């Protein structure tokens, strides 16, 4: 991101100390957020990547601080007594138009959340992404859905673990599958760098791609969330590892109490009845 300099003409001088100071305003992100704000209705807004909406299925708009999140209902319930399934997409992805194959047998409603800066959700100004903010995105979806089981893909798998620990009474089992952004930025601070990206008007937000590939995921931090899930959830095994890739944060969970390894469809069938 390059600062475009707009001081001078419109600078306001405010003397309040011996030698000044003088104030200026600089724009660090020249994109007008209004140009990328998601419009009303379920079909998105100008500037957003088109997404095929399942006919007759609603999109619910949620507010997470200044961000407007798109929560898509992908399928109605076949059995109203079963809680919803919430799908969290991978880094750079968005909610698919149809439930993935592994979720085909889920008897309750199937919903998908577009994370901040993804799909139809708002592109924030000037980045600032963290996995924890996406956890709070998922919590906004839970505030709407109530108790849910979560299927997380890639980055969404990591966020699913966090929200299982953060809201153990609302999340009834998470299934973690392979997908973009599953690795993150390693287990400790990486080589020094200042991440930059060009502001965009189309999702996924390049700042999300830049920042969420360097977000640090220490194994003991992931294990803390597992411990929260185990201690406060009444499920015996609230976390299911269903992918092939085992980045360090996930490898640290493997074999611990509360974690099992099972194909995603089998795990979902189990959580649907549990």
């Amino acid at each position, binding site marked *: 991101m390059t*600062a475009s300099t707009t001081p001078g003409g419109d600078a306001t001088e405010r003397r309040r100390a*011996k030698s000044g*100071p*003088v104030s*200026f305003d600089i724009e660090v992100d020249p994109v007008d957020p209004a140009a990328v704000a998601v419009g009303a209705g379920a079909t998105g807004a100008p500037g957003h990547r088109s997404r095929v909406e399942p006919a007759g299925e609603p999109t619910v708009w949620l507010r997470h601080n200044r961000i407007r999140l798109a929560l898509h209902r992908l399928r109605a319930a076949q059995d109203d007594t079963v809680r919803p399934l919430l799908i969290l997409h991978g880094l750079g992805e968005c909610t698919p138009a149809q439930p993935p194959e592994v979720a085909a047998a889920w008897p309750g409603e199937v919903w998908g959340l577009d994370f901040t800066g993804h799909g139809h959700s708002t592109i924030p100004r000037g980045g600032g992404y*963290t996995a*924890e903010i996406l956890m709070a995105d998922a919590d906004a979806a839970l505030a709407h859905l109530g108790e849910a089981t979560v299927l997380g893909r890639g980055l969404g798998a990591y966020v699913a673990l966090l929200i299982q620990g953060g809201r153990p009474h609302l999340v009834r089992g998470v299934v973690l599958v392979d997908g973009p952004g599953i690795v993150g930025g390693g287990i400790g601070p990486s080589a020094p760098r*200042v991440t930059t990206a060009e502001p965009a008007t189309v999702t996924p937000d390049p700042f999300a791609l830049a920042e969420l590939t360097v977000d640090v995921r220490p194994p003991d931090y992931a294990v*803390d969330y597992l411990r929260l899930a185990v201690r406060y959830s009444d499920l015996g095994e609230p976390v299911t590892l269903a992918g092939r890739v085992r980045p360090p944060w996930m490898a640290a969970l493997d074999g611990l109490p509360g974690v099992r390894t099972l194909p995603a469809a089998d795990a979902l069938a189990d959580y649907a009845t549990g």
Partner: protein
Amino acid sequence: MGLAVWEWGDRADPPILFAHGGFDFAGTYDAFAPLIADAGWRVVCWDHRGHGDSDHADLYGWEADQRDAVAVMDWIGAGPIPVLGHSKGGGLLLNVADALPHRVSHVINIDGLPSRRGWPDLSERDRTSLRAGALTDWLDHRRATADAMRKPGTIDELARRRQRMNPRLDLDWLRYLVPIGAFESDDGWRWKIDPSMRMGGVGPWQPEWSMMRLPGLGMPVLGILGLAVEVMGWGTIPSDVVPNLPEGARFVPLEGVGHFVHIEQPELVAELVLDFLP
């Protein structure tokens, strides 16, 4: 997104970039910055995103703050330049100096060297309980923050509220800061800082991650540490810092001085800084 940038001194003088601490704003340098400006420096400081007169951002993060610092350096245009940071601003500029050594000529760090000290050594069970409470609080806060506003009050009330976090600072000074860092509306004054920001967020960050940027710095380094323990400080002691100092670094621990070293002792810190700068 707009960042408010403040200057003290003559624009023709050589620039030095200041970074304030978390929950502060550029105006908190009003006692100290003029002393540096009077000695022939153009002091430039921005209000961090969400702080002071800068825009309230949609998201906040370390990566974004670093990028903002570099945006201000780009705006200043010259380089490499000396940088001075207090507390969070000190840690931030350590990262920038480590990442972009060609942009930074000198590093001055004022009580911005986090250490592990002061962090409780908890049992696994207690740690889980503590994290559960903090996480629930934080998620509840995120659910409610869209409509949040800071609590209004008189100038005196805001000053006294701030004194709870800055107990060593003089009440007259804190009253002076209110009209700069707060705005007035019909029901009173409110601090400008984004109400969505709060102390003690959640995340994997560990304090020593900033300290580990220190040993590799190749430019001259001056570290100043206030040794009086207080609520906003890190509780870092000299033996945490000394092994991490790069070759030739100057390190000045100050007994009886708190976290806001440059506000408690502006003349002393200015003397140390001006002696260090070329």
